C-alpha cells in the first residue's frame, strides 16, 4: 500500500511537472550566463559589473561576422552582397549589414540628424573653429554647394548651410571602426558582413548555424575569393556538437555496461528495474523541486543534479545484494537501513551546505540533488521490498572474478596504529594540496576550441582590428545627460592612447548623441566662429537666408533609441552606459586612465565571468568543507570520536587523492571539478558508511560486493567522461574516476572492524 501511494505521489509530481512545462510557467534554461552573477554581490558595483559583462557577452552571442577576401574589390563586394542576401533570408537572422547596403543606413541617419546639424560638430571641425579657422569651413561649404555629388535642397540648406553634418557622420563611421566598409590589407580587399541574430543561444542558435552551413555549402564563390566566419555562436555550437557526440557515445557505452553488469551479476531484470526506478524518481523529484522553486531549471543544475542523484543507484544495489536466506524484502531493507540512512543524511547535509552559498547556480544544484536523493531513498524504502526479491546469481565467468574482488576487499583492513598513520598521511596530503593546487577559472579553457574556427577568428580580428578581447568601460551617471557628458570627458582622456596605438578606438552613446551641453557649446561655437563672420558672405551665394542655428538639441530619448539600434548594446540600463573599446593592446594604460574617473570602470567580460566562476569555486569548496564537518559529526555520533574520525577521513582522503591526482594529470581546479569533488565525497561517504555498518555482521560479504558494483556503475557512468574530447567533460570524468577508486580503497581501510560503538 505504501509503495502504491508513493508511486501515485511520483506520478502526480510527474503530471504537475509536465503541466508546468506545457503551460509555460516553467522552463529549461540553457543560458549559462543567466545564472552567473544572478545573485547580489557584496562588493560595491560588483554585481553591476557582472551584469554588464553578461550583457556584453550576450550581445556577442547574438552577432556573427563573415569576411570575404580577394584581390578584386568589385568581385569581393558583390560576393558579400550575395551572401548578405542569403543570410538575411535565413530564419533567425535579425539584420545584416554589408558594404552594399550602407546607403540605406546613411539615409536613415541623415533623416534622424537632419535638423540638428549646427549642434553636431565633427571633432576636426570643432578644433578648426576653436583655432579660428572658420574660413576653411566656409570655403568647403562653397565647394560643396557646387559639387555634383551633394544632393542640396532648400530645406537642407536652410538647416545646414555650412554642410557640417556630413563630416560628423563620417567621423561617426570612423569611430565605429569603419562600419561595414571594405578593408584593404596585405594586397587584398576584405568585405565584412555583420549579422545580428534574433536569439544567439539554445536551439535557435543551433538551427541558425545549421542554416549557415547549408548556405556556405551551396555558395559558389568567385575564383580567388575566400570566406571566413567568426562569432561566439559558431564556437558554442561547435562545442555543443562535440560535447553532445561525446556524451552520447559515453552514455551509450555506460548504459550498456551498467545493464550488462546487472544482468551478469543478478541474471534478472528486477534489480535493474529497481535501479532505474530509484534514479528516475530522484531525477523527477529533483527536477520538479527546482522547477517549482525557481520556475526555470538550468541545464547545468540538471546535469550536475542528475549526476549527484546517480549515486542513488547505490541504494538499489545495496538492497539487491543483501543475501536472501533469512528474510524477505523487508528483512533485507532492515539490514541495510542504518547504512542507507547515514549515507543519505551525510549526502543531504553536503548538498544543504551548497544551498547556503548565495550562488543561484549552486543553490539550484543543492535543491535538485537533496530533494532527488531523498526521493530515491524513499523509492528504495517503499518500492524495493515489494518487488520480487532476486538473489545474487553471477554468471559462471563473473562469479570467480567477483569472489576474488570480495576476498581482496575483505583483506583491506587497518589496525588502529595504521589508521592513525593514514590520518597523518592525509593531513600531510591536505597541506600539500593547499600548497600546490591553484584555481584556474578561465572560462575559455572549459571548452574545446575548433582549430579552424580559431584561425578564422584570428584572421578576422586582425583584418578588422577587433582586438582579442571585448573590453568595455561602464560609465555610471544619475541621468542620461550626465552619462553622455562623462563619456565625452572619457573620450578626451583616452584620445592620446588612440594616437599612440594603445587603443584602436572606442564607441560610446555620446558619439551618436552628444550631450545637450556639448550640443549647446557646438552651436554657440558655430554661431560665433562661422555663422557670424561668414554667414553673410555665404548668403550672397545662396538662394536662402543664412540664419544662425536655433534648433533645440537632440535629446537622448526613446525616438533616438529606436532610430539607432547600435545604442541597444551601449545604453543598456537606466543607471549606466557602456563604452566599447576596440583593439586594446595596452590594458594597463587604459586601466590607468579609467581609474582616474570615479564614474568609470574597465570591464573585461571574460575575466569578470572567470572571476565569478572562481568565486563559485570557493563557495563550492567551502560547502565541501562544511559537508566534511557534518559527516564528521554524524560519524562521531555513530561510532565514537576516533572511529568517526577515521570513517570521515575516508571520503576526505578520496577527495585529496582526486585533487592531487588531477594535479599530476594537469586537470585544472575549477568550479566544475570542485563539484565533481562534492560527488566524490558523497559517494565515498556512502562506501565507508556501508562498510562500517556491515562490519561484524554476517551480511558483510554482500556489502563488499555491493560497494564494488557501486564503484563499477559509477565508473561506467562518470569515469568514461574522462575520455571526452571536451576539456570540461574530461576533467570532471578524470576527477571522479580518481576519487571513486580512492574512495573504494579507503573505505575498508578506514572503517573499523566491529559492528558499532566503542573503539575499533
Amino acid at each position, binding site marked *: 500500500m505504501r509503495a502504491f501511494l508513493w508511486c501515485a505521489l511520483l506520478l502526480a509530481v510527474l503530471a504537475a511537472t509536465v503541466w508546468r512545462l506545457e503551460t509555460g510557467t516553467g522552463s529549461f534554461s540553457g543560458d549559462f550566463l543567466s545564472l552567473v552573477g544572478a545573485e547580489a554581490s557584496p562588493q560595491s558595483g560588483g554585481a553591476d559589473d557582472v551584469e554588464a559583462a553578461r550583457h556584453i557577452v550576450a550581445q556577442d552571442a547574438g552577432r556573427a561576422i563573415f569576411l570575404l577576401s580577394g584581390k578584386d*574589390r*568589385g568581385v569581393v563586394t558583390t560576393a558579400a552582397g550575395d551572401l548578405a542576401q542569403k543570410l538575411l533570408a535565413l530564419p533567425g537572422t535579425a539584420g545584416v549589414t554589408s*558594404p552594399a547596403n550602407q*546607403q540605406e543606413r546613411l539615409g536613415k541617419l541623415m533623416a534622424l540628424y537632419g535638423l540638428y546639424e549646427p549642434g553636431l560638430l565633427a571633432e576636426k571641425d570643432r578644433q578648426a573653429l576653436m583655432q579660428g579657422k572658420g574660413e576653411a569651413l566656409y570655403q568647403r561649404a*562653397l565647394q560643396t554647394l*557646387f559639387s555634383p555629388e551633394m544632393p542640396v*535642397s*532648400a530645406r537642407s540648406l536652410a538647416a545646414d548651410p555650412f554642410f557640417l553634418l*556630413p563630416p560628423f557622420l563620417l567621423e561617426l563611421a570612423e569611430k565605429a571602426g569603419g562600419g561595414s566598409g571594405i578593408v584593404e590589407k596585405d594586397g587584398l580587399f576584405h568585405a565584412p558582413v555583420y549579422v545580428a541574430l534574433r536569439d544567439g543561444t539554445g536551439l535557435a542558435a543551433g538551427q541558425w548555424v545549421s542554416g549557415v552551413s547549408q548556405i556556405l555549402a551551396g555558395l559558389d564563390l568567385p575564383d580567388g575569393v575566400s570566406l571566413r566566419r567568426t562569432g561566439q555562436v559558431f564556437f558554442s555550437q561547435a562545442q555543443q556538437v562535440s560535447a553532445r557526440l561525446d556524451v552520447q557515445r559515453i552514455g551509450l557505452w555506460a548504459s550498456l555496461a551498467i545493464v550488462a553488469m546487472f544482468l551478469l551479476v543478478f541474471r534478472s531484470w528486477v534489480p535493474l528495474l529497481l535501479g532505474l526506478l530509484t534514479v528516475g524518481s530522484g531525477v523527477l523529484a529533483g527536477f520538479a523541486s527546482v522547477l517549482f522553486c525557481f520556475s526555470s531549471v538550468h541545464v547545468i543544475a540538471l546535469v550536475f543534479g542528475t549526476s549527484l542523484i546517480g549515486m542513488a543507484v547505490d541504494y538499489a544495489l545495496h538492497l539487491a545484494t543483501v543475501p536472501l536466506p533469512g528474510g524477505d524484502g523487508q528483512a533485507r531493507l532492515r539490514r541495510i537501513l542504518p547504512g542507507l540512512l547515514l549515507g543519505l543524511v551525510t549526502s543531504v547535509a553536503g548538498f544543504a551546505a551548497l544551498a547556503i552559498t548565495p550562488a543561484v547556480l549552486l543553490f539550484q544544484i543543492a535543491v535538485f540533488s537533496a530533494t532527488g536523493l531523498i526521493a530515491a531513498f524513499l523509492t528504495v524504502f517503499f518500492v524495493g521490498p515489494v518487488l520480487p526479491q532476486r538473489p545474487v546469481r553471477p554468471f559462471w565467468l563473473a562469479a570467480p572474478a567477483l569472489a576474488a574482488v570480495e576476498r581482496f576487499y575483505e583483506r583491506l583492513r587497518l589496525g588502529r596504529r595504521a589508521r592513525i598513520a593514514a590520518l597523518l598521511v592525509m593531513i600531510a596530503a591536505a597541506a600539500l594540496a593547499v600548497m600546490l593546487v591553484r584555481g584556474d577559472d578561465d572560462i575559455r579553457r572549459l571548452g574545446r576550441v575548433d582549430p579552424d574556427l580559431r584561425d578564422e577568428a584570428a584572421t578576422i580580428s586582425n583584418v578588422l582590428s577587433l582586438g582579442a578581447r571585448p573590453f568595455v568601460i561602464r560609465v555610471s551617471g544619475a541621468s542620461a545627460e550626465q552619462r553622455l557628458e562623462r563619456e565625452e570627458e572619457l573620450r578626451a582622456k583616452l584620445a592620446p592612447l588612440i594616437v599612440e596605438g594603445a587603443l584602436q578606438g572606442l564607441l560610446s552613446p555620446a558619439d551618436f548623441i552628444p550631450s545637450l551641453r556639448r550640443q549647446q557649446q557646438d552651436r554657440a561655437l558655430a554661431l560665433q566662429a562661422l555663422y557670424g563672420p561668414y554667414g553673410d558672405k555665404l548668403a550672397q551665394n545662396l538662394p536662402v537666408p543664412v540664419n544662425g542655428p536655433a534648433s533645440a538639441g537632440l535629446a537622448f530619448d526613446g525616438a533616438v533609441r529606436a532610430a539607432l539600434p547600435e545604442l541597444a548594446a551601449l545604453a543598456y540600463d537606466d543607471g549606466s552606459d557602456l563604452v566599447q573599446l576596440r583593439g586594446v593592446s595596452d590594458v594597463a594604460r587604459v586601466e590607468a586612465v579609467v581609474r582616474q574617473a570615479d564614474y568609470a570602470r574597465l570591464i573585461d567580460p571574460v575575466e569578470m565571468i572567470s572571476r565569478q566562476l572562481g568565486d563559485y569555486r570557493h563557495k563550492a569548496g567551502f560547502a565541501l568543507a562544511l559537508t566534511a564537518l557534518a559527516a564528521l559529526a554524524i560519524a562521531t555520533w555513530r561510532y565514537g570520536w576516533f572511529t568517526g574520525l577515521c570513517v570521515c577521513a575516508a571520503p576526505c582522503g578520496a577527495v585529496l587523492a582526486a585533487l592531487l591526482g588531477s594535479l599530476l594529470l594537469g586537470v585544472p581546479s575549477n568550479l566544475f571539478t570542485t563539484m565533481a569533488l562534492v560527488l566524490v565525497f558523497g559517494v565515498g561517504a556512502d562506501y565507508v558508511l556501508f562498510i562500517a555498518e556491515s562490519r561484524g555482521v554476517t551480511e558483510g560479504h554482500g556489502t563488499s560486493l555491493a560497494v564494488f558494483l557501486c564503484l563499477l556503475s559509477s565508473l561506467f557512468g562518470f569515469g568514461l567522461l574522462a575520455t571526452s574530447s571536451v576539456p570540461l567533460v574530461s576533467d570532471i570524468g578524470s576527477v571522479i574516476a580518481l576519487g571513486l577508486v580512492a574512495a573504494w580503497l579507503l573505505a575498508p581501510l578506514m572503517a573499523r572492524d566491529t559492528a558499532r560503538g566503542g573503539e575499533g
Partner: protein
Amino acid sequence: MRNLACLLLLMLIVVAGVNAAHAESPQPGGPRLGADQYLQGDFVMERHLAGFEKPLTSRGHFVVAPASGLLWQTQEPFAGTTILTPSGIDRLDAGGARSHVASGDQFAAIARLIADMLAGDIAALKDGFAISTRQQEGGRWSAVLTPASGNPVAAAVSQLEAEGGQFVSQVKVGRPGGDFDLIALENQSVAALPLPDEAAQFLGKGSN
C-alpha cells in the same frame, strides 16, 4: 552615401551616352567605352531649388575613365575639384588642399554598376531602375531612369532624365521635393589612355 550614388549615376548616364554614340543603334548598353579609353568634356550645372527662381550655376571640366573614376573640376563661381575613385571621394580646394569626404566602399555597388555598364551590361541598371528609352530624329535619343522600389538611391533621386546623340548632352537629376540639377555636357571627346598628367595625378594613369 546616396549623394555619391547621384554622382555615379551621372557617370553612368555620361558613359551610357558614349556607348550610345559608338553604337549603330543609340541604345544604352551598346558597344562600350574601351578599357583603354577615357572621356572628357565641359559641364554647366544648374542647381534648381524649389521656391527659388534663380538656380545655383557652376561651370567646369570633367574627365572619366572606366577603371579609374571621375574628376569633376569646378571652375566657376569657385574653383574646386572632386575626385571620385573606387576607394572613395576626395576634394581639392582652391588652394590645393585635399580632404577625404567619404569611403569608397559605401558606393561600391554603384561603382559596380558602372563597370557593368561599361561592359555593355544593361541588365545591371535594370535591376535598380525602370528604364525607358526613346529614339529621336538625327540619331538623337533620350532615356528616363526611375529608381526601383527598394533602391536606396530613391531617397535622394526621384528620376533621371538624359538625352544626347553621339554623346550625352544633358542630364536632369530630379530629387524628392521638386529640387533638381540640370547638367549640360559640352565639348566631349574620347581619347586613348593614358590620362593626361593633370588628371593622372588624381586618378592614376587610367588603367587597372
